[in-house]
């Protein structure tokens, strides 16, 4: 059987090169085609308009932009799109279930009324979600490890909300 000749190279159309950075954000897939050095914070806020993740300092000192990247707690202001290529990101908007029921940490925040101005709370909640996953029974010292800043002084209620959420999460669902 005669072997098929390779096609004349002049007729080859190269497959389009995949450009851009793929990320999964709150379970949805996105491709970022712009500057790979764009900080994740501004991708979330300016491009996707997921504005729950807040700008507070831009230098990793306040925690208002805390997100989970492949389950790790990180600050979106210090991550570029290149850093998060292929990764799964959870923001405050992605914590609740699809049916609208809240994550136990979110519910605990409401139950303890841990709000005040509220600006830092998305970041505080993301840090708390990370903590209760790592430490199902967090001690006061564990909670002290959260260094997210709150100017209004909501810390005692945040502390109570974390303890409450951890207790809820340890109790098996009926």
């Amino acid at each position: 059987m005669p072997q098929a000749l390779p096609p004349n190279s002049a007729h080859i159309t190269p497959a389009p090169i995949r450009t851009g950075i793929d990320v999964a954000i709150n379970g949805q897939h996105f491709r970022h085609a712009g500057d790979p050095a764009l900080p994740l914070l501004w991708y979330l806020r300016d491009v996707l308009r997921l504005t729950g993740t807040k700008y507070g300092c831009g230098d990793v000192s306040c925690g208002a932009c805390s997100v989970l990247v492949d389950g790790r707690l990180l600050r979106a202001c210090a991550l570029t799109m290149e850093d998060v290529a292929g990764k799964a990101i959870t923001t405050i908007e992605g914590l609740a279930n699809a049916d609208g029921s809240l994550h136990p940490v979110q519910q605990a925040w409401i139950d303890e009324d841990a709000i005040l101005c509220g600006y830092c709370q998305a970041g505080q909640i993301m840090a708390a979600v990370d903590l209760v996953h790592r430490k199902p029974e967090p001690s006061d010292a564990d909670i002290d490890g959260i260094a997210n800043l709150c100017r209004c002084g909501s810390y005692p209620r945040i502390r109570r909300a974390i303890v409450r959420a951890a207790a809820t999460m340890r109790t098996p669902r009926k």
Partner: protein
Amino acid sequence: MSGSIDAGRRRFLQIFGTATGALVVGLPALGWTPDELIGQPLVRLNAYVRIEPDGTTVIGARDPEVGQGIRTAEARIIAEELDADWNRVIVEPLDLGVATVNGESHWTLGHQVAVGSTSIPAAWKDLRSVGAAARGLLLQAAAAQLNVAAASLHTLRGEVITGTGRRVGYGPLATAAAKLKPEPGPPVPKPASQYLLVGQDAGDVDARDIVTGRQPYAIDTWFGDTLVAVVVRCPYPGGKLARINDADALKLDGVTQVLSIPPPSATLALGVQPLAPGVAVLARDTWTALRAAARLQLEWTRGAPVATDDALAASATALFAGEPTHAVRSDGDFAATAKRARYRFHAEYRTATIAHATLEPPNALVRVDARAATIIAPVQNPRTSLETVQRLTGLSPERIEIRLPRTGGGFGRFLETDYVAEAVMLAKTAGKPLKLLWTRADAFTHDTYRPLSVHQLEAAADRHRTLTGWSHHIASTSRLAGREPAARWWLSEMHPDDLPAGLIANLQYAWYSLPSTLPRGSYRASSHGVNAFATECFIDEIAHALKRDPLEFRLTLLGNPDGKRLPYRGHGGPVLDTGRLAYVLKLAADAIGWKQHHPNGHGFGLACHFTFGGYVAHAFEVSMQGRRLVVHNAVCAADLGRIVNPLGTRAALVGATLDGLSTALRQRITLKDGRVAQKGFKDYPLATMADLPNAVQVVLVPSEATPAGAFDMAFPTAAPALANAVFAGTTVRVRQLPLWDELMRLL
């Protein structure tokens, strides 16, 4: 429109219906025509109350929410008088209400402002009648529908109930109620004995949106086709732009324009115009604007020589040798009393320059054209924003829409409109909607600071170890400098009736104007935030020196047990009841275990103060653990009059206590090479959870007195109670804020 109700205080509530059949109460707009809204049920009505036929009750909250819980508390006041079913209430923020009649502008919703804990006292006066008016109409509608006398009906949780127990929901009555002519005369609020909501806990109405990331702050809003602006401002106070090279910035893809912001005008007040000259980069997105701003090559000239805090303190010492700028109060003869006194005391206290450090930095979204303007920015006083926009655009007030988004803190920073002015100037030139973002560094380097204050205190006591003389001299930069005539400057710095005035026969208060290089603005709790530190520390020092118990010494001074009703001119007056202050002090001392034996070497400290009509005392238990200062226990006792929302009030008191501690511990703005050195939280450490007590025990005094508000009240006494506890635990007397550096120097 079906009618209007005289709500007293020359305000008229208007009643009308919508196409959906809703009852709307609010908008006491003179000459305003609601007809254009009828048929448009989805527009925001900017009304206090809207009841839809399905029973949904929308309550409008008029004052800016900066974390003080005002949206919740105001809605609870209206819902109480309306007898609404709180579970069916939706709270929405109102815009700034303004209407023009015969060329004159009127504020239609009262003074919408977040300053000095005034919103609740004002709402208590104004907003109860709103709920009562709506409830009255629903009762009338029910009486007509059921053909019974209105007097035989009562209301409960969103229903009208007849004498025989028949119930009709507000929803089905709304359409008919909107067509009624209201009863003449102002609506009568409920007696307090019938309150179901006021005095009960209510969680923040925005809580769900906040924990799901859906609450829109100004920084989270856009219009279509909006440019982002980032400004590089002159770092030298009073400096100017000398040279600019914007070629590199303009080369960046996505940059549309580079614009300059002129230096502040000498003819305009501080705070209503940009704080400094600057160069703005306009770009299609934030990241591009930030990168382009970093590429600007700018040279600045310096202004007048700058004065560091140490230099200012040296000037204060020189000032104190001369005559005061204003003799604030003089009772008896302090000098003669001091001369013949058995005991004499003298101490000098200092508070350093500090910044506002709101977590949401200044920002503004602006859309402006020849016909109208819309502003979405963090604002505490939307009126001044409107006036600034009016000046810059020439638009008439009703053409300017000022929205009031929830704001990521305020503490006085957002009483200014410098950033709004910047955004409007840039948007006008750009001809496009514009979103101005201040970076964190911008917020630290260009604030309206609370500059240094120096306090010289002297006192005299007789052989009974009782105070006979007191002198407090303050040198500070007036909050009114650059804004009001110099003759008024002292007013923001020292209250003639602050304690111990009225309690010590020979007393002298004086103020010295100490011009700082940096612009001064409002700061949480105003001058109480610094003056209480000096006063309450000095009283503590005297008690220890006289070997008297600091609690007993204060209580005796306050005239325990009956106290005195002293006249109080200014915010919080007309009366200062020292008995109420003594009572909260005792409560705080009891709760911390003041009178128990303390074998653990911990230090216990107290302080109390009257701020804006609220009586607050703090008690702290502290110790040094190696190089850590640990606050083991913290108590805040408060008498704030009637409490609308205890859950929110507790949050405010705990929050102000921790903010007071955080500010007292390490916050300080310094000048280096002629410019502000701090550029971020790394240089200006807000306290973290680990630095602060795990809990603050709040003791609230039950009261039927007029509500005083809550937000600022627990700020002033946190610093002196801490310094007093540190002294008790270490024998080191810290007379300067921030406390930490000074404690480390002295230990």
